[in-house]
């Protein structure tokens, strides 16, 4: 999440954006990243948890983050920003028979490895579900 905010901070500086309102991510269901963990990190890093009476958060707001000015700058730029996460489902194409299928299309015997529900082949090509990217942000 630190990397995501740094990417946006660099772009915002180039675009003259001083206040970010929305951050939109695409996190596929087999990307390995957890949307809830990303939301939590976003709240911590943008200072959204400071107002909740959290003691550590309050002192961090007063004393500045351990990172120094970069943390302050991040909190200022993203104050009140909303995080939107799109979670594309898994879609695969069978390497043997070409069938397109999702992670729930088979049964318990095949789903664990995303085996093709028609011919049983493994190691499919991923059409979607492995995305992990910043889509866009909105600001002014």
């Amino acid at each position: 999440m630190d990397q995501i905010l740094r990417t946006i901070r660099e772009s915002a500086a180039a675009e003259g954006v001083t206040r970010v309102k929305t951050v939109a991510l695409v996190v596929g269901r087999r990307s390995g990243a957890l949307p809830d963990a990303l939301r939590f990190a976003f709240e911590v890093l943008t200072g959204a948890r400071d107002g909740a009476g959290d003691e550590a958060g309050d002192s961090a707001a007063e004393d500045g983050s351990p990172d120094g000015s970069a943390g302050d700058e991040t909190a200022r730029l993203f104050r009140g920003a909303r995080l939107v996460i799109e979670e594309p489902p898994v879609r695969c194409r069978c390497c043997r028979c070409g069938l397109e299928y999702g992670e729930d299309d088979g049964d318990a015997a095949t789903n664990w490895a995303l085996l093709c529900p028609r011919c049983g082949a493994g190691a499919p090509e991923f059409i979607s579900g492995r995305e992990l990217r910043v889509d866009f942000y909105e600001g002014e």
Partner: protein
Amino acid sequence: MKIKLARDILKANDQLADGFRRRLSELGVLSVNLIGSPGSGKTSLLERTLENLGDLRAAVIEGDIATALDAERIERKGAPAVQVNTEGACHLDANMVIDAAEELDLARLDLLFVENVGNLVCPAGWDLGEDLKVVVASVTEGDEKPRKYPAIFERAAACVLNKVDLLPHVDFDLERFKRDAGVLNPDMTVMLLSAKEGTGVPEWVDWLKTKLAEKRSR
């Protein structure tokens, strides 16, 4: 104002890794990223490997959350080792590996091993500039590892199944393990090995030599 970025989050890491891989390729060094649970025997495998490499020159970058114990074990085998302490992080990233490699004379190497932090989950997603990922599993961990941690098995060029000397004493269904691993990744080579007794080590070293020769002939 809406600004479209469409940027991969791991791109910064992947670019660093690609640059490092190119540098290693120019030097003819084969790099291997060893990934496995804590206690699967990654360091023991490396110790055995170093004893059996013959003329090949190898170095090891050791990733651990804390301590330099593993680097000390490698150095006792006469190979250069650099310890990276991640101080809490559950995996190495490309930047850490590139920094550590500064301590090594890469031009004098044939093989660079990176022993990742003991973890079957997070390291799978981080490119360290390696040519090959190798997953190290052991029979004491149970035979369901491919089912539980498919991501690393999908991406690995080989799986070393360690501690096979203990097979008679543990409930480990070898056929099930091999079948599941093969379903996830039909191209992955599975090697049975005992770092303790040395069985399977020659086959593993031959596999490394073959991969090195393939890389240099490209």
